[in-house]
């Protein structure tokens, strides 16, 4: 519970970077409006602008699920590493 159990894992790890990227990717894709303001190619008559954004709904979902799974694995590993404390620093991805 106290200040520092000596084997506290680092706050930033490769897994956590991947989690952060998974959560950040939709922001880049959606806020870069210029990358998708066009009508072609159309899909079953729906202009690119619309189906591309709709496509990002499942894409971002997959990314969030990935982040969720990685996070859980990360938490379990950490829980094992320091069996007594729930030592999540709360970087919060």
């Amino acid at each position: 519970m106290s200040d520092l159990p000596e084997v506290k894992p680092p706050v930033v790890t490769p897994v956590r970077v991947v989690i952060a990227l998974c959560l950040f990717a939709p922001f880049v894709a959606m806020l870069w409006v210029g990358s998708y303001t066009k009508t072609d190619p159309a899909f079953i008559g729906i202009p690119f602008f619309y189906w591309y954004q709709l496509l990002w709904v499942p894409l971002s979902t997959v990314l969030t699920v990935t982040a969720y799974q990685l996070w859980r694995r990360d938490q379990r590993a950490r829980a094992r590493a320091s069996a007594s404390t729930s030592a999540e620093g709360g970087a919060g991805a």
Partner: protein
Amino acid sequence: MNDGVNGVALGVFVFFFLAVTVMGFLAARWRRAADEHSLDEWGLGGRSFGTWVTWFLLGGDLYTAYTFVAVPAAIYAAGAAGFFAVPYTILVYPLIFTFLPRLWSVSHKHGYVTTSDFVRGRFGSKSLSLAVAVTGILATMPYIALQLVGIQAVLDVMGVGGGDSTNWFVKDLPLLIAFGVLAAYTYSSGLRAPALIAFVKDTLIYIVIAVAIIYIPIKLGGFDEIFKAASDKYTAAGAGGLVPAQAGQWTYATLALGSALALFMYPHSVTATLSGRSREVIRRNTTILPLYSLMLGLLALLGFMAIAAGVKVTNGQLAIPQLFENMFPDWFAGVAFAAIGIGALVPAAIMSIAAANLFTRNIYKDFINPAATPRQETQVSKLVSLLVKVGALVFVLTMDKTVAINFQLLGGIWILQTFPSLVGGLFTRWFHRWALLGGWAVGMLYGTIAAYGVASPTQKHFGGSSKEIPGIGEIGYIGLTAFVLNVAVAVVLTFALRAFKAPDGIDETSPLDYTADAGDPGVETELPPATADASH
């Protein structure tokens, strides 16, 4: 619109309406806990909901009748610009994945019912907590009013009420009945009522959208024809288009981002979140909630279909109900109208509960009667939820609809200004409480003045939510500009106040509180065993 009553549609509508009314009253018995008279019970459903109930509740809460009517209406009127609702809802989920579990944990650890509870506990500042509470209540009221506007649109198309010819009482009677029913079961059942009704609402909505998105394009000759007709209309009108113009891209992106940041600042979304049983329920929900985004995107496309189907309405709000009436057989139109109508009841109930919780916890208990017992708290909350709804009703009946829409627009800008206190507080205690208050005040002031100054072809003030961003020169969402200003002021003031050694408030939370989960010591579960395992 008002060419006689559509009997079959009305019959189906009334049938569903009666069914959910019965459900609403029975909900009080659903997973009843030992202590019914605590605010946790009435206002948060005993904090006992599992993944699926929370999913329905959040979906029922965020995707309101007004959304169903307004998003396609925006597309109908302006084309691509209205589609920002889709990227907006996409961005919401990574955001809530990041911060809501922390809010859940700390709230359960300390028994917080509202965001203001948390802000007060974290920063030890009643004034900051009051600012957050007042903002929340102000932003929620017009939102409730808009739900009633949504019901009105449906009733109007069905041919009951709404018309100009009849006298005011007959005209508004259906709305009054719908309202009375809503008020009564919220009062008696609390958050359990909308949670149960949300099942019906979402099932109906999903069925209607699935049918609409397949059936209507077939009848209209495919999406090629639909988008061609839409494109022709925008060209002829000289406004709107199938993709946003170069100048509109900043607006599109800032609206999407600003709205995404604002959504979970609304008291009603937080209420639905805190009613979840565990931290995992929240994270798991972010992975299934996007189903609603998909639905919203498809729904938005109905705006184009309304154009292709030749729906001509002067009030854009009626475009989608009218499309349903024109395209569907009567009985199914009734199902669709019921979906929208019930879609208004669920969020209206949750919103009034959320606003009532804020008032009770952060104004009544903090400033009026600090010694209030849980029973008194619940009683006050119930009454306030009633008052809030009556207020919304009076608003809708006495004022022009555009007033409600203007206020809702302002509400979005306002609620975003509570973000630094809440989310900032969840991750860091670096900000000084007075600095946050200063930032909030600047954001509110700038947002209100800027929105007041926006003119549109039909309105001199509050004509829209976007304006030139000072220093960048592009047109952007006012709420986001105000938010940036807010954060900047908060940072500068924090440095200043720290330099002058201004006293910090007492933080009653500890770092571990933000990661606690159900089952950890000290986390309030409050569940009698009999009810806990009845969850999904």
